[in-house]
């Protein structure tokens, strides 16, 4: 079966965007209706580009406009055919700024059944942009498994039966030779068995090691029976308004990342130094938050040591000069010779520390890639696997219930759990519902050991009991994960460089104060790590590409606008303020380590109150206040949320 809809005619039936098209943009969105098996190109205007940029900015607006029910008061659920799966890139993708091939996935996720914005890199953005599209908007549900094939104007939904059951790497391994393409000539983003089986924390994985992992976006893809998106690097050109200025601004960002002390270690080692650094703050999650004192010699976890332990091979994203993404060949042990993706910090934490695997570094590296292959979110897997381990240890879960004995640090057992969850086998079927739903099913005391937010989202791979800003951000976010942090050069937007991290009031003000920047970053089509430069530089590179005059205040305003739209969609999904809190364990007080005794629970309500006040949202209903919306130029949204009252407030 091949449903070929070549979009050649779209170039003649729609007005050519050539003249007014801002630099950096391909100018079209690729629309895909899986129910009707139709693909078509939809131009978008220069005004929309300026307003929405791309990435989460574009995705949030499409999601808000297109997933409403009940006259705009309700929202379709994650598994509804009308849910949108938006795979968006941004204006910087395909241009020479470092790490600029960004993919932002926006959808109603299976984890919270609310909005999601989650990122990956690789070569998605470049390949798509050179094919002539800024984003892919997918709707409907296919009856049979298909994959989306894009090769310039040839866009087809193709039979994916032969890919079903394959993990994400095997899927790309199969498609490359079949299409006669190798290397970055083909970018493939796919789901593995976990996505096929609608695991609530299934991810979308691409280009060997790049994962958009949050909020079950992989389950959405699975529900739509879309196994993969395969994009041949297109042959079209991207223009820049000021190409020389663009190259200079991109090089300046590179220089900044290479030399700025706050970014230098990231440049050299990516996120690897996180393990040791966070352990010193009590923010490394050890054995499901049961301790914060590493029981092993930490010198083996120093970043250079982690690198030296493997045969390393650069595996950078488009145009990126960071020494961040790598492939590793395992040198010894059971998996000797196996090629794996070098784990990020969150891989070491989720596939390692959270489950008590603290010395088998080769094993953790291998397990991390097993998760990517199955397409499970490494964070939530860490929380769920660690939770099962703790519950078995404490007798809250029996061996019979789980099906086998799973103890701290058992890599093989964890790998077995991955398969059980991915295929929903036995107890894996319970766990596949995600940590919150599994915990609630079992009830106390097991439930009290589980790490989650009441919204249903899993935290990132840190111990947020020592990172209150991130806990607050995770709980109040409209993206299913961090929405405002991590802070980058906060002084640039009038925020303090340093705060007392255990002063709830200061933390809430700070996380509200930096709000906006991240959504801006996630709309550029660049990586969160290569945007760790001053906003001024990001404006320069964006303006050189597009010919605009975006200023630093514009960026924050843009991000807050996006956040407000996501918030409105969240409320429509029923994610109300009462759900904005941590689970018992997540919000507990560390019993040892650097943050021992720091009780976030005691300050929680006050923190949330402060945050609401600072961001200008209504504490009771959760809605952004009319004044807030109007100040952001979102009068239309004020009307949507507040009706006639909008003008009175």
């Amino acid at each position: 079966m091949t449903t070929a809809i070549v979009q050649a005619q779209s170039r003649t039936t729609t007005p050519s965007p050539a003249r007014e098209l801002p630099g950096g943009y391909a100018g079209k969105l690729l629309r895909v209706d899986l129910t009707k098996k139709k693909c078509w190109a939809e131009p978008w205007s220069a005004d929309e580009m300026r307003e929405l940029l791309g990435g989460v900015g574009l995705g949030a607006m499409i999601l808000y406009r297109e997933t409403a029910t009940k006259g705009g008061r309700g929202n379709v659920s994650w598994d509804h055919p009308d849910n949108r799966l938006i795979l968006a890139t941004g204006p910087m993708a395909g241009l020479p700024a470092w790490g600029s091939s960004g993919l932002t996935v926006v959808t109603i996720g299976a984890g919270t059944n609310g909005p999601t914005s989650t990122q990956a890199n690789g070569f998605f953005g470049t390949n798509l942009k050179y094919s002539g599209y800024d984003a892919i908007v997918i709707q409907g549900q296919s009856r049979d498994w298909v994959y989306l094939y894009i090769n310039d104007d040839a866009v087809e939904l193709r039979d994916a039966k032969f890919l079903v059951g394959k993990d994400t790497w095997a899927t790309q391994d199969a498609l490359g030779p079949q299409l006669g393409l190798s290397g970055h000539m083909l970018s493939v983003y796919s789901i593995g068995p976990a996505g096929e089986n609608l695991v609530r924390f299934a991810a979308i994985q691409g280009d060997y090691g790049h994962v958009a992992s949050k909020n079950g976006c992989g389950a959405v893809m699975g529900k739509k029976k879309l196994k993969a998106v395969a994009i041949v690097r297109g042959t079209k050109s991207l223009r820049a308004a000021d190409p020389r200025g663009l190259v200079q601004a991109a090089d300046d960002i590179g220089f900044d990342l290479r030399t700025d002390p706050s970014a230098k270690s990231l440049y050299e080692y990516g996120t690897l130094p996180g393990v040791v650094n966070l352990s010193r703050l009590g923010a490394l999650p050890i054995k499901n938050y049961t301790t914060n004192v590493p029981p092993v010699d930490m010198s083996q976890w120093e970043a250079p040591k982690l690198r030296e332990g493997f045969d390393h091979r650069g595996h950078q994203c488009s145009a990126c000069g960071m020494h961040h993404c790598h492939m590793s060949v395992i040198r010894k042990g059971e998996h000797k010779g196996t090629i794996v993706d070098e784990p990020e910090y969150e891989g070491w934490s989720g596939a390692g520390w959270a489950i008590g695997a603290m010395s088998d570094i080769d094993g953790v590296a291998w397990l991390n890639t097993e998760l990517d292959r199955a397409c499970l979110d490494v964070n939530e897997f860490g929380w769920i696997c660690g939770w099962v381990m703790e519950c078995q240890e404490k007798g809250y879960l029996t061996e019979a219930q789980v099906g086998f004995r799973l103890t701290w640090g058992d890599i093989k057992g964890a790998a077995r759990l991955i398969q059980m969850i991915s295929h929903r086998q036995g107890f894996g079927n319970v766990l596949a519902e995600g940590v919150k739903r599994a915990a609630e099913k079992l009830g106390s005391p097991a439930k009290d050991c589980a790490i989650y937010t009441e919204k249903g989202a899993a935290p990132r791979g840190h111990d947020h009991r020592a990172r209150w800003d991130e806990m607050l951000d995770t709980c109040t976010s409209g993206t299913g994960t961090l929405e405002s942090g991590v802070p980058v050069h906060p002084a640039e937007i009038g925020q303090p460089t340093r705060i007392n991290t255990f002063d709830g009031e200061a933390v809430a003000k700070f996380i509200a104060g930096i709000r906006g920047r991240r959504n801006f970053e996630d709309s550029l089509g660049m990586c969160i790590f290569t945007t760790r430069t001053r906003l001024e530089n990001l404006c320069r590179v964006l303006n050189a590409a597009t010919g605009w005059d975006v200023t630093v205040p514009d960026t924050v305003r843009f991000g807050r606008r996006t956040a407000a739209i996501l918030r409105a969609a969240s409320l429509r999904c029923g994610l109300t303020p009462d759900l904005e809190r941590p689970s018992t364990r997540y919000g507990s007080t560390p019993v040892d380590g650097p943050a021992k005794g720091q009780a976030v629970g005691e300050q929680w309500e006050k923190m949330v109150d402060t945050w609401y006040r600072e961001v200008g949202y209504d504490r009771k209903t959760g809605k952004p206040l009319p004044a807030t919306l109007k100040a952001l130029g979102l009068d239309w949204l004020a009307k949507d949320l507040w009706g006639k009252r909008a003008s009175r407030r």
Partner: protein
Amino acid sequence: MLATTTHVLRIHPEKCTGCLRCELACSYMQTGTFQPAKSVIRVSPFEGHTSYAPYTCTQCAEGWCMTACPVGAITINAAGAKDVLDDTCVGCKLCTIACPYGTMFYDPDTRKAFKCNLCGGAPACAEACPTAAITYEATATADWLGEFARERTARVLAGAR
């Protein structure tokens, strides 16, 4: 007589991370836009997705492209590179089948042949490479990739798996 330069693009494949920034820079020099399909330096993958290396014209002694051109449209520029004179090239593609290295290209949009001209002596690819995998050096040209590629294809290409 022009001073003959001995500068060439030297490729250090073990340093390449496959980011393809050289292709962006090259296509910008070639076309004024970012369109790596029109780059004349092209990164190849080896051993699946774990090894990469850029490949471009060696400025070989024979200059197969140059001697093949029926209208004398390919000459040697001040940097010592074989260079296509756009005004003279008619787009007959003889150079593309004469070059045994696969580094002579044809642009269907301009209907001209195009190739690496060392950017006239300041190669943009070398400038753009974040890992110094491409350097512009005074040395003899050589097969920079053969040995690396042979090693890094062992697993993938060595006969049936």
